[in-house]
């Protein structure tokens, strides 16, 4: 191939312009390369699946202007640091670390690659090139709790948790607060199973709770096992978590909380392309469409749908916040005074249960 005069001029011009581009930490780009690391498998039908859907959403929206790479099943620990460094050396401009436990590794690697934008999900350590992002899943829990309060006949729901971390505790509390606004007798017994992914154990925990009188089930683990048991036993219903799980229990899923990271990922990718990315700290929910509600199950009657919609819309327009006092804890002590809304910092360190939650063993 011969070098025509026109190409020569183009290449020369580009070469001249190059130093100008490099003069800022976050320059404008023609094309952005994004790396994602996931703690689990993209086929878990839940948390990691949802993050991967966000990645696909960015690809779909930006077309040729984006290239993405991802690494799944990355353990939280030193291995994560290696994976992050590899992604950085592959030329990623933007890297999303999608699990809480990746935090320390992100801080270390980000310091070595100041020109790369890092974003850490559900974390708390930011930096000059580390942004934080999270989703207000508890807003979805409030909608589920409203439905549970209306539909439960035994006024007792079961809740399968992974570990008693603030994220999970917050979800349980939101669910119960919403249900008790409908039915003040409503109670919940959380069962912690010490794992995110053990379908057989999730299913047995669901059986144990159903055999002891609950008729609605919610879970904060990664899969649909509990929902399937709810369908098998024919109780009132359950909820999808992380993704729409109606394929597993079409008549039993009352609604689902869907993680929708796509819009956030798209906004960050566009900011990097435009050279305007700054490390943010976002905690978005129903309003920003980062948390979505799945379709209502056929069982859910019209009036309950209306009540659930009211809670959903109240959270979208800001007129309703589930953690507005008066809130008592499960020992009867008032924790939040009437009219006061808990701050984000208080929510993110929540380690007590509201009234109506039986203290888990």
């Amino acid at each position, binding site marked *: 191939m011969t070098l025509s005069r026109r190409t020569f001029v183009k290449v020369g011009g580009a070469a001249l312009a190059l130093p100008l581009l490099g003069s800022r930490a976050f320059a404008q780009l023609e094309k952005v390369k994004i790396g994602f690391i996931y703690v689990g498998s993209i086929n878990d*039908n839940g948390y990691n699946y949802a993050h991967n859907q966000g990645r696909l959403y960015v690809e779909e929206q930006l077309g040729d202007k984006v290239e993405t790479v991802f690494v799944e099943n990355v353990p939280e620990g030193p291995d994560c640091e290696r994976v992050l460094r590899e992604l950085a050396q592959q030329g990623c401009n933007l890297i999303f670390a999608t699990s809480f436990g990746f935090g320390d590794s992100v801080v270390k690697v980000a310091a070595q690659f100041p020109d790369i934008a890092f974003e850490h999900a559900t974390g708390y350590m930011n930096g000059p090139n580390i942004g934080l992002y999270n989703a207000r899943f508890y807003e979805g829990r409030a909608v589920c709790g409203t439905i549970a309060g209306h539909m439960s006949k035994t006024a007792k729901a079961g809740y399968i948790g992974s570990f008693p971390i603030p994220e999970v505790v917050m979800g349980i509390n939101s669910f119960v607060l919403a249900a008790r606004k409908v039915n003040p007798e409503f109670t919940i017994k959380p069962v912690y199973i010490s794992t995110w992914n053990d379908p057989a154990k999730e299913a047995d925990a669901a059986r144990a709770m159903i055999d002891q009188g609950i008729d609605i089930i919610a879970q904060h683990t990664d899969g649909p096992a509990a929902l399937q048991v709810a369908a098998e036993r024919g109780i009132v219903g359950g909820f999808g978590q992380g993704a729409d799980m109606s*394929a597993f229990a079409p008549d039993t899923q009352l609604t689902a909380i869907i993680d929708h990271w796509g819009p956030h990922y798209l906004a960050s990718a566009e900011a990097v392309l435009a050279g305007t990315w700054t490390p943010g700290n976002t905690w978005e929910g129903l309003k920003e469409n980062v948390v979505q509600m799945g379709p209502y199950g056929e069982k859910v009657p019209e009036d309950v749908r209306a009540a659930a919609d009211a809670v959903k819309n109240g959270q979208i327009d800001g007129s309703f916040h589930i953690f507005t006092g008066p809130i008592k804890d499960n020992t009867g002590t008032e924790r939040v005074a009437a009219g006061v809304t808990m701050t984000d910092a208080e929510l993110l360190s929540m380690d007590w249960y509201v009234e109506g939650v039986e203290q888990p*063993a």
Partner: protein
Amino acid sequence: MELVLAILITVVGASTPILIAALGELVVERSGVLNLGVEGMMLIGAIAGFVVQFHTGNPYLALLCGAAAGMAASLIFGFLTLSLSANQTATGLALTIFGTGFSALAGSSYSARPVTLMQPLFPAEFYSSPIIRVIFGYSFPVYFSFVMVVAIWYFLHKTRAGLILRAVGENDQSAHSIGYSVIGVRYLAVMFGGAMAGIAGACFPLLLTPQWAERMTAGRGWIAVALVVFASWKPFRLLGGAYLFGLVMTMELYAKAGGGPLSAVPSELWAALPYIATVVVLVLISIRRDASTNAPACLGKPFLPAN
């Protein structure tokens, strides 16, 4: 009372796959081979069973294919350790890692796809009352596991073939010198263990939770391996051990979910109970001076003919 029956039904479900996998491993170890790949073979059996159930809806075919897949995986192990005399511990661990990865790969396009559970073996009229349901309300693998306990005990202790298998496990050189094919017997044992692990794995999507999830056996293959030692290589003790573990695993959840005196037991204690039980049993076994640990003398040693 009804709650007790409900708990029993859940215990049976939790114990069955562990029992089936452990029975297979018991026969393998009695022939002098230690296969630590049970967890991996279970996962391969689980994905094979799931895929067949998903496409055909025939749970018996699914169990059969689970068994075949587990057996195929065990042949990899057999070839490396028996034909090539590779280290059994390392090869078994490698098989578990391989099974985890292979099942994830094979199952990657089957997420978000439920299957139907296997129906109970007996027609519904049989178990109209709850008490009868506790006995007749299960699907095929549960009864299969009980039959296999008796069959394996009978095979090992009452048949000539069982005697040869034990001889190979206790003293491979002697068995070889009187003309038995040590390698051949061990291949058969390893394949049987693989088939049983495959069936145990297929029980997860067919009996417990009708879906495919990566690593869905969640360490129960390791419990099966430990149970064989716990049961000092005896089938009936294995039955007791598997149900003890199943009972503890289930009671933990029922106690956490319900009120009553059991819920006062801290969950950490529940989680520790199977291991406490293991230690107690091992101590009791070693106190009895007359019986040795009963471990096959050639367990884990590669067979290299003296001449």
